[in-house]
């Protein structure tokens, strides 16, 4: 991942994180504000329910009092009325429940369940109280009602009338939009202002919690898969003398809150998205200003690595990046200066080595020349007869040494005149076979310690573009070096192999080997580890390999021989 990408990513994440934090903070703040408002509204609803219950209780007491003092009660208690006479009285006073009772609470006439006459009333009646809640048992189920009890004049009968805590009561509460009141009536009946509640099972946990704790409890119910269907409830237990009669559930729809949260979320997403887009643009512009010099530095560094020590970067600022560019330029300048100095030093050293070699090579034949000439002079002075013989021998020697001098000079001349290679299709295997054939006789010469040849050639042909003469000469030099390295015999191991984009030729001996220092200087012209030679052999090999755009390396260890490895490309010219 590039620095620019990282920088852009960091910028985007920062913007997105900031927006997310702000959005979350706003959403949480909004939710808390809604929750406080909901709690206040629900508590207001509960208070309204209590007031409505008190008002209804007073009205109920008034109506029951009217029945208790009516002539119908006298008729009922005297047996003059039919057993279901209470129905007419209840209907007249709009009561849901009415029992006319004997003082011992035996039902004389019942409006809501006429068949119950003769049985005891089970409403847990307590006379003297204003009104109370009671659980009413009916043939078709149970109900919870607000009950008021009054005694008839003379005390012959008690009149217990009641009105059901039903949907009509909930409807009369005048509930604010977005709210609703539900009433759970013991043992298992749940209604709202419209009647029975669908999916009442979702409220069972809250009701169970209220029943268990006997205190107010809250819960949120999600009616459908949509979150906006969620509704927050506050459950208020309705007790009567310690017995739970019901639970009033004040519910607030969370739709508005959810909608607002969604709006905030979408705004956050849009702002965040815009921020990210702007951040990306700004980041791109900023990072471009930052990374462009860095990229220039990287390009300069790659140029230096490729050998172009003259690479320079443009210094466009005076900040850290500018200082880095200046340092880079100074570094490359110093590198060039050091290289130039090294080249000069190398040249001097090379010339010194050349001079030493020339002096050494030339001194050896010069000394016999001098001795021979001095012998000729002395023979001339001693006798003419000896002089002729000495002259013949002397001239022979002089010619031999001069020939030697000529050879030395020729070698130096050849190195200096190394021509440009003439590339043609060359089968490396064939070329190796041809080069080794020339040394077959020498390898098996009698005056030489036994030296075996082990040849491992790649299958088939190994065609490459090469100058066959130069390559053969390079191979010859390596083979000669190897033979020279094995004066006591050994194995000459030549291997050819095909690579992905070239061929490899390795020439190994089992000779004395080289030290690491010798390996480093091995290809330096005029450097040799042998007592004879010009030190140009491996330099010529390296020159040939270099002209073929290949490379040569040596792996060696003292006492274990050396391996020279030449790697050459398959093609020359434009493909390289």
């Amino acid at each position, binding site marked *: 991942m590039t620095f620019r990408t990282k920088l852009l990513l960091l910028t985007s994440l920062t913007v997105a994180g900031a927006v997310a934090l702000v959005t979350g903070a706003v959403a949480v703040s909004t939710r808390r504000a809604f929750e406080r408002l909901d709690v206040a509204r629900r508590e207001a609803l509960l208070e309204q329910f209590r007031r409505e219950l008190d008002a209804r209780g007073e009205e109920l007491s008034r109506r029951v009092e009217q029945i208790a003092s009516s002539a119908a009660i006298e008729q009922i208690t005297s047996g003059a009325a*039919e*057993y*279901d006479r209470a129905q007419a009285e209840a209907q007249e006073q709009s009561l849901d429940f009415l029992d006319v009772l004997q003082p011992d609470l035996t039902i004389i006439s019942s409006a809501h*369940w*006429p*068949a*119950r*006459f*003769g*049985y005891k009333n089970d409403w847990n009646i307590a006379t003297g109280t204003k009104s109370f809640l009671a659980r009413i048992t009916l*043939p*078709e189920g149970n109900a919870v009602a607000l009950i008021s009890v009054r005694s008839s004049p003379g005390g012959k009968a008690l009149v217990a009338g009641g009105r059901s805590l039903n949907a009509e009561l909930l409807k009369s509460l005048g509930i604010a939009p977005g709210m609703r009141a539900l009433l759970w009536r013991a043992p298992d009946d749940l209604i709202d202002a419209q009647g029975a509640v669908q999916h009442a099972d979702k409220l069972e946990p809250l009701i169970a919690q209220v029943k268990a704790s006997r205190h107010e409890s809250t819960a949120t119910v999600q009616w459908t898969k949509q979150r906006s269907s969620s509704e927050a409830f506050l459950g208020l237990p309705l007790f009567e003398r310690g017995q739970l009669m019901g639970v009033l559930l004040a519910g607030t729809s969370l739709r508005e809150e959810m909608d607002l949260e969604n709006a905030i979320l979408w705004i956050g997403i849009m702002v965040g998205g815009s921020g990210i887009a702007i951040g990306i643009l700004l980041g791109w512009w900023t990072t471009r200003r930052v990374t462009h010099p860095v990229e220039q530095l990287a390009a300069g560094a790659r140029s230096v690595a490729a050998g172009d020590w003259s690479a320079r970067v443009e210094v466009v600022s005076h900040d850290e990046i500018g200082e880095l560019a200046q340092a880079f330029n100074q570094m490359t300048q110093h590198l060039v200066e050091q290289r130039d100095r090294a080249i000069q030093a190398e040249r001097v050293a090379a010339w010194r080595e050349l001079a030493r070699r020339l002096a050494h090579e030339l001194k050896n034949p010069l000394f016999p020349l001098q001795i021979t000439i001095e012998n000729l002079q002395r023979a001339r002075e001693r006798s003419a007869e000896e002089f002729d013989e000495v002259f013949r021998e002397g001239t022979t020697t002089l010619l031999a040494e001069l020939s030697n001098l000529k050879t030395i000079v020729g070698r130096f001349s050849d190195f200096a005149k190394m021509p440009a290679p003439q590339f043609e299709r060359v089968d490396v295997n064939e070329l190796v076979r041809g080069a080794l054939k020339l040394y077959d006789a020498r390898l098996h010469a009698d005056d030489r310690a036994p030296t075996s040849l082990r040849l491992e050639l790649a299958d088939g042909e190994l065609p490459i573009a090469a100058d066959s003469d130069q390559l053969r000469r390079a191979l010859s030099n390596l083979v000669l070096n190897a033979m020279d390295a094995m004066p006591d015999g050994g194995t000459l191991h030549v291997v050819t192999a095909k690579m992905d984009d070239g061929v490899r030729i390795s020439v190994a001996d089992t000779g004395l080997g080289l030290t690491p220092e010798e390996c480093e200087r091995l290809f330096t012209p005029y450097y040799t580890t042998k007592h004879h030679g010009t030190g140009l052999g491996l330099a010529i090999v390296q020159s040939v390999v270099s002209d073929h755009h290949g490379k040569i390396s040596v792996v060696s260890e003292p006492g274990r021989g050396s391996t020279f490895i030449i790697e050459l490309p398959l093609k020359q010219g434009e493909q390289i």
Partner: protein
Amino acid sequence: MEMRAALRTLDPADSDILALEARAQLIPAVFETLVRFDERGEPQPCLATSWSHDAARKRWVFTARPNVLLHNGTQWSPKGGAIELPDDRPLAAILRELAQPAGAIVVRADDGSLLGTGPFRIAHWEAEKSARLVAHDGYWAGRPFLDSIEIRMGRSLRDQEMDLESGKTDIAEVLVTDGRRLRQKGFAISITPFMETLALVFENPRVPDATREALALSIDRATINNVLLQKQGEPSAALLPRWLSGYSFLFPAPRNVARAKQLSASAAPLAFAYDRQDAILRPVGERIAVNASEAGIVLKSSTGPADVRLLCLPITSRDSWTSLADVAAMLKLGLPRASSEFEAESALLNGYRIIPLVHLPRMWAISGGVRNWPRLADVWLDPDPKVKP
């Protein structure tokens, strides 16, 4: 007159068992039997003046009443002036069968109409809606007082009462619980002997015996009769009322809630059905549910298939055997073979599959001018009734 029943036909051979009561009311006015039962249940001659048997008591000869005219004016003259019946049953059984409406003498005319010998003939018949009977001038016992009787069938009790009060009918069926109120309005009330039996019938044979017995023990028959039925009925654990069988007291009807609780321990709720539109059955059914609840039996109201159903079983005949057989037929039970009615009824009630509760009379509200009700042949209209509605 008006009635709740809606008869398809007045053919005595028709087997409309649900309309037995109405048919028993109307058929004797049109078609007569060889013998009939008087109010004490004793066989009396009707179209047969006498009867005798051969030496082996396997053939009976009923001597036809002479000078009996059919409704078309022709003479009813059985071959040889007598009717022979090969029957080796006891005489009582033979006479009981012959006295049933199904045993009435009916002659089919050439046009397919049915001819009888009764005091009235059918002048108009619209199945299940209305009929008009006119006096048979040639009736062998003398022309009836009424010239004709208009009958409207399929009328609800509420409609009948409204028609009665508005003078559209002289005779209307009323509930036994409405008698006091209608008397206060000035109508004469005719109460028949107990002609109906309110009973619980278990339709689900898988209800355990103990649960059935518990339900029977839980019911407070006295309160049902005294309060709900305004003492118009007769609490009883027998199917047939005492006036008919004479032995109903042999079926005790004790209430024992404690025992019922023991028997009903862990009893499953029972689906309980009754006609909620019926002004008698509804309060009685509700009270039974309350009584059962006290004994720990839950009766869940059902409008469909039921474990137990509250029914009103009509007494279809003044003959106990016939009535028992009709009840058994109505309940799709076979009448057990027994040597006496008591044994047969005991067998029917054994196991509490039927729990009789109360015997009820029928009540007719009659306008002030109607006299000699309920036998139609004897009814006459007083042109100046002392009591007017």
